């Protein structure tokens, strides 16, 4: 487990905790100098990029040091908050998320140099960089915090800065609307977390995650689990708590979307994994519920994705799907704990955590790719794109890598993490002690269905954007992206290929994270990592051989228009669109998607020109959440008089509450 990182940490002489805190501080300050520099110059954005990059180096190094040698104690300073100290510690679980936060954030900052340059965004460039840095710092802080008050501080910085980055273009009403939806969702989530930590404090007397001593099966344990599921599930976007996610991901600037989808929603997963780690004997239904919610999220997330016309909304629904896959892994690990099968804990946890990394990599890659397309064409509508492969060859190839990876196909990284989850599910199905295995048996076919549907969705997206002929003037005028945008994508694609072709590279990190859950057996003993690598290499060799053979035969070939069953003048408008590609699947899942369409009624032998319109809006949001919120709003109208909108009144309320609490207790 020791490596070059030990020797690196030695001369630097800093513990991983110190490095992590330095990284957070650098990231938090990255946008500040720019505020005092002129709007027109490039100095501000360069300086902010340099600071984020330095934070990235420090953060990733901190994670590497922690993987090599997890520090036993961490940093603990006295603090005025009752029941705890200001405690920071980087163990394997923290390190996995820490590495991801700073890696993706740094790549996003590189991408932003090309995508959101100050010269083109004079109004909001400085604001965006300030909150981007703070968002990164908040996430970095929360994954290393051991004290729950410190954790919540990081959590709130993250939640508020995410709101402020989503609403970068706050002059647009639609963006303000999704921003408020996100803000309401995250407030409710934080409320759940306050209640959860309060219950933990009541049961253990400490403000931390450690649930030892709490009876997991009792009412307090049940309440803690349900509150964690609601609070962290809202952030993660677990269905049906995902309602804020598609709009927010679609409206934010693309590098922020990548950071949100790749990293921010994973903070919910971190919270779940950290809280659950404290319960050594969870009841079986905890894992069962998480497994079932994960399966529902995964299947319906991808089904909704298939119905989308907007490339960023499509990618956002895939986040819901992948969070579902991750939760299936976590649920399996919890089931393993409940029934006393350590190999299920290992496989489920390793699958979930590796998928956290993998999804961060390929989703950021896909968002960057879609950002390049938006940058080049000015549209997010799939049905206005097409034929971009010949105009943006590098972007197309990199997007293809991301698409193959997210479908979980060999030989890329998505396959490896899904294989871990599958192995765990099959182990569970082979158990001979009792009947609990039947509950897990239906998860494997559900995951297979998800993989196949994701394939349909990404073939559709890749085909509609990059293949065929351009469907609009915008697509015709597209151009390749600058190097600052391609560079981060190349780095991400290389990581996807590395993890897929050499999965043993990530085994130490996963072992170190699994140790937090008390798993002592190594991953290398449970999974044939070497054989997976061999299969990947053989597959690449077979592709190369077949390609070489075909290429040797078709060196001399003629060009002609597409044959199209003899029709000699096929036009761009005659192509199959993404909507038509998705139509059969949308109909099949119509019972859950509730698609809307305006189809014209054609009458007579010569009907007039007609238009068709179909869309798949978020059924949970439109039919469940908004109506019930509106009803609640009407019900509470009588209380409206206390909401005066001036700060003095609110401060007065707070003072009054504190006095009452002091008198009461």
């Amino acid at each position: 487990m020791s490596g070059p990182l030990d020797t690196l940490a030695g001369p630097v002489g800093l513990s991983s905790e110190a490095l992590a805190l330095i990284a957070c501080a650098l990231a938090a300050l990255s946008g500040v100098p720019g505020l005092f520099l002129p709007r027109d110059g490039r100095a501000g954005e360069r300086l902010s990029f340099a600071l984020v990059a330095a934070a990235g180096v420090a953060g990733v190094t901190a994670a590497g040091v922690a993987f090599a040698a997890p520090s036993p104690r961490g940093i603990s300073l006295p603090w005025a908050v009752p029941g705890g100290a200001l405690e920071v510690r980087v163990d394997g679980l923290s390190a996995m998320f820490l590495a991801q936060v700073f890696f993706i954030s740094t790549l996003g900052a590189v991408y932003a140099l090309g995508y959101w340059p100050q010269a083109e965004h004079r109004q909001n460039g400085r604001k965006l960089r300030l909150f981007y840095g703070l968002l990164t710092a908040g996430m970095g802080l929360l994954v290393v915090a051991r004290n729950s008050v410190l954790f919540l501080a990081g959590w709130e910085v993250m939640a508020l800065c995410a709101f402020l980055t989503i609403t970068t273009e706050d002059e647009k009403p639609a963006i303000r609307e999704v921003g408020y939806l996100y803000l309401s969702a995250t407030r409710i989530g934080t409320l759940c977390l306050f209640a959860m930590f309060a219950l933990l404090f009541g049961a253990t007397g400490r403000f931390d995650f450690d649930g030892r001593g709490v009876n997991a099966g009792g009412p307090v344990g049940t309440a803690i689990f349900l509150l964690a599921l609601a609070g962290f599930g809202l952030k993660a976007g677990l269905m049906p708590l995902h309602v804020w996610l598609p709009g927010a991901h679609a409206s934010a600037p693309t590098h922020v979307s990548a950071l949100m989808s790749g990293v921010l929603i994973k903070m919910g997963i971190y919270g779940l994994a950290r809280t659950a780690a404290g319960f050594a004997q969870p009841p079986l239904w905890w894992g069962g519920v998480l497994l079932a919610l994960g399966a529902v999220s995964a299947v319906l997330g991808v089904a909704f994705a298939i119905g989308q016309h907007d490339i960023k909304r499509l990618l956002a629904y895939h986040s819901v799907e992948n969070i579902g896959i991750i939760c299936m892994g976590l649920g399996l690990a919890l089931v393993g704990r409940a029934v006393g099968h350590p190999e299920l804990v290992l496989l489920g946890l390793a699958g979930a955590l590796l998928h956290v990394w993998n999804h961060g990599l390929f989703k950021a890659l896909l968002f960057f790719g879609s950002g390049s397309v938006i940058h080049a064409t000015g549209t997010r509508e799939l049905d206005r794109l097409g034929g971009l492969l010949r105009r943006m060859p590098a972007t197309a190839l990199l997007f293809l890598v991301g698409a193959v990876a997210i479908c979980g196909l060999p030989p890329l990284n998505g396959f490896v993490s899904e294989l871990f989850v599958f192995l765990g599910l099959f182990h569970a199905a082979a158990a001979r002690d009792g009947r609990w295995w039947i509950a897990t048996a239906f998860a494997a076919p559900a995951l297979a269905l998800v993989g196949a549907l994701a394939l349909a969705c990404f073939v559709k997206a890749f085909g509609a954007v990059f293949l065929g002929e351009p469907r609009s003037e915008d697509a015709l005028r597209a151009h390749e992206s600058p190097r600052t945008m391609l560079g981060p994508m190349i780095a991400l694609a290389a990581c996807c290929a590395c993890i897929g072709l050499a999965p043993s590279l990530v085994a130490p990190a996963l072992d170190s994270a699994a140790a937090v859950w008390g798993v002592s057996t190594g991953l290398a003993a449970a999974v044939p990592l070497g054989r997976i690598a061999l299969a990947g290499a053989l597959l690449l060799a077979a592709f190369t051989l077949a390609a070489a053979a075909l290429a040797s035969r078709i060196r001399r070939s003629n060009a002609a228009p597409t044959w199209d069953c003899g029709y000699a003048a096929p036009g761009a408008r005659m192509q199959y669109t993404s909507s038509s590609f998705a139509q059969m699947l949308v109909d099949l899942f119509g019972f859950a998607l509730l698609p809307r369409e305006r189809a014209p009624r054609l009458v007579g032998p010569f009907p007039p020109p007609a238009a068709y319109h179909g869309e798949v809006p978020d059924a949970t949001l439109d039919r469940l959440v908004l109506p019930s919120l509106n009803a609640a709003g009407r019900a509470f109208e009588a209380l409206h008089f206390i909401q005066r909108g001036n700060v003095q009144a609110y401060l007065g309320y707070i003072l009054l509450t504190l006095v009452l609490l002091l008198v009461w207790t």
Partner: protein
Amino acid sequence: MIPRILLLDVAHVAVFLLLPPLLLGVINKTKAAFAGRVGPPLLQPYYDLVKLWRKGSVFSTSTSWVFKAGPVAAVATAAIAALLVPVARHAPLSFEGDAILFAYLFALGRFFTVAAALDTGSAFEGMGGAREATFSSLAEPALFFGLLVLGRISRSLSLVAMLAGGPEGHWPPRTGASLVLVVAALFVVLLVENSRIPFDDPNTHLELTMIHEVMVLDHGGPALGAVLYGASLKLFVLSALVVRIALPYLGADPWIAWGALLMGLLAVAVSIGIVESVMARLRLVHVPSLLVAACLLSGFGIVLLAR
């Protein structure tokens, strides 16, 4: 000992790479016999492949390298999948979890064939691609329920162990009913994955109801040859899987095991021919219902194991 294993591996690769077109010949002969015709010679698919391989190519001006990647992926993925099918308790490539790789290899091939179809910009091929993606997604759970049944019986996720039978043997009375359901469901998966009747008609190149054939309308010459060869390889490999489940040979004698496999493959080819001769193609709207039925069938296989 090692040279013997090596010899077996070479034989495995040779059989799996050379025999697939013969399977198509057997199917066509069976269909001809049912129709009262003499039919094309058994080796006709080989002649066709050689002819196509010698031809020149015409590529559409709309297409890019993705169009050529389709046939390449079809051959490469099916060839690697062939390495995973165990015969006589041995496969050239085998590890815990290779059953998942087996399923996902065909998915990888599908990704590129559908992408190649979309690359032409033709509405016909887009339609075929959409159908292929839709129907295959419905077939996937059926396949995985089947794998789950085998995995529970054998307590393994490696095809070698899954098809060798578990500690209790392969077809004992307790598991027999589940395995019958799995074989039936996988036969349906075999038909849909290989675009046979009742899902698709391999003979109709110019009808709007077809799936696989329409995706490759624009491929010609060597590229079409690669597509056809890849399709026959896929049919051979998936048939071999069904045969290995239905005819478990518990010993490790390679002669008997290979003999049983080839006999079984002959039987599958004949039964595909019979199905194609006595059934009409389903209306497209009914295809999903049949696939869901196959999923439920293998789902019942799991439930039966829970007794």
